[in-house]
């Protein structure tokens, strides 16, 4: 299995990469980790005329936290960088929980978070996580930069909001207003398989009350699902067994799973419900421990 023929370009700067994309006129594709793009090209689901390899652009592999807690993830920050990051363990529990369960350890050495967002696979873990966190993608094109919320960035299966001559240069997780908490749980038949279902929960609490919540669902719909009603039901109150069960029910209702070889639709809904409860019970424990 070989990809169709393409011209390979390896720019040394973002400006050069954008110029190449512009010149490619919609038939050029950015290559970062390549862990989804290269298999798709081999299977000929994708046949770009030009590959713009951004791996030789210096300074895109960062993972930084601002003084206020805003997290920046550069376009070449690999899953394994996130997995090994003490910074995430300290500042962002939902991301810290997701990083070790992305694909498999070897794929994590190449694949990138920003690339995963751009790929917009309904089975992609990071889209759910960043959606739950209210994150955004910074796109740079010939006319400058713009920031796009992840909830809007993912348009549908394998579709994102980028113009053909824009590059997603970083993802941003906004500064928390309370104490960040949450988690990511994924059911997979074996390591590296697509998720049967996955749930990302991100909450912020202050004085025992939930002041912000987000829930993203992986693999249970035609695109990543933002379970806003479930998340909103948690805001303004402390977490109780009742509020957790209610949010879990709403999240299960928001899921739009299809029956397939990984499980029936009702089974997947049940997984979503169970995972929401498990993550939020963990949050309760962690809040109690901290108190």
């Amino acid at each position, binding site marked *: 299995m*070989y990809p169709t023929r393409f011209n390979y370009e390896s720019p040394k700067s973002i400006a050069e990469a954008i110029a190449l994309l512009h010149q490619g006129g919609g038939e050029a594709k950015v290559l970062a980790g*390549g862990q989804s793009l290269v298999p798709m090209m081999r299977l000929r689901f994708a046949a770009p005329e030009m590959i713009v*390899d951004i791996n030789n652009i210096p300074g895109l592999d960062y993972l930084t936290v601002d003084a206020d807690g805003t997290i920046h993830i550069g376009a070449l920050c690999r899953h394994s960088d996130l997995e090994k990051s003490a910074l995430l363990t300290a500042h962002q529990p939902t991301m810290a929980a997701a990083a070790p369960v992305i694909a498999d*350890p070897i794929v994590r*050495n190449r694949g990138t978070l920003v690339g995963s967002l751009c790929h917009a696979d309904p089975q992609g873990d990071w889209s759910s996580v960043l959606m739950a966190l209210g994150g955004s993608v910074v796109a740079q094109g010939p006319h400058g930069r713009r920031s796009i919320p992840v909830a809007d960035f993912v348009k549908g299966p394998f579709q994102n909001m980028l113009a053909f001559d824009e590059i997603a240069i970083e993802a941003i997780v906004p500064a928390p207003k309370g104490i960040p908490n949450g988690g990511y749980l994924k059911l997979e038949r074996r390591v590296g398989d697509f998720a049967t279902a996955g749930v990302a929960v991100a909450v912020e609490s202050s004085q025992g009350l939930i002041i912000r919540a987000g829930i993203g669902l992986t693999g249970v719909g035609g695109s990543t699902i933002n379970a806003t009603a479930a998340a909103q039901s948690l805001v303004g109150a402390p977490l109780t067994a009742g509020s957790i069960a209610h949010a879990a029910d709403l999240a299960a209702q928001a899921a739009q799973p299809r029956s397939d070889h990984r499980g029936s639709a009702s089974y997947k809904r049940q997984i979503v419900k169970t995972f929401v409860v498990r993550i939020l019970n963990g949050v309760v424990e962690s809040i109690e421990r901290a108190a």
Partner: protein
Amino acid sequence: MTSLNEEVFPDQASNVPVRKVTIRINGENRSANVEPRLLLAHLIRQGFNLTGTHTGCDTSNCGACTVLFDGQPIKSCTMLAVQADGHDVMTVEGLATASELHPIQEGFKDEHGLQCGFCTPGMMITAKALLDENPDPTEDEIRWALSGNLCRCTGYQNIVKSVMWAARKINNQAAN
């Protein structure tokens, strides 16, 4: 420097220019002219005749094609050969010296870490990266590290034992 300088798959006409890549592979610089669409696994096998690297699933699932890329395990069927230009690659052929097997290879031999042997190069390369980073891994850490490499014969039990054997041997060598 050994220069291969051969076109891989030169049979079909193409208007895409070939590119010269030079890779430091198992400590030796080797060059080849390649089409951009050539995958690293195919350059290693067909271009450089290092057939220890296997291609199993061809879809970045199985890990049989794992090589070290600048010291980190990657699936060579999922990287373009042109991307490896100027980088350091280690294949399973780089483990043994002229006179002795690497402790990981000895471990796989001693603990019967293989049956058909197809996944073994990828397993050993991934184990190498693990032991380089964590010389005394627990069983769980070994299973975690090898979770991207599939074996359809052994049930993994003896593969894990092989890596533990290698870790003990390497640590004993270091202590003496």
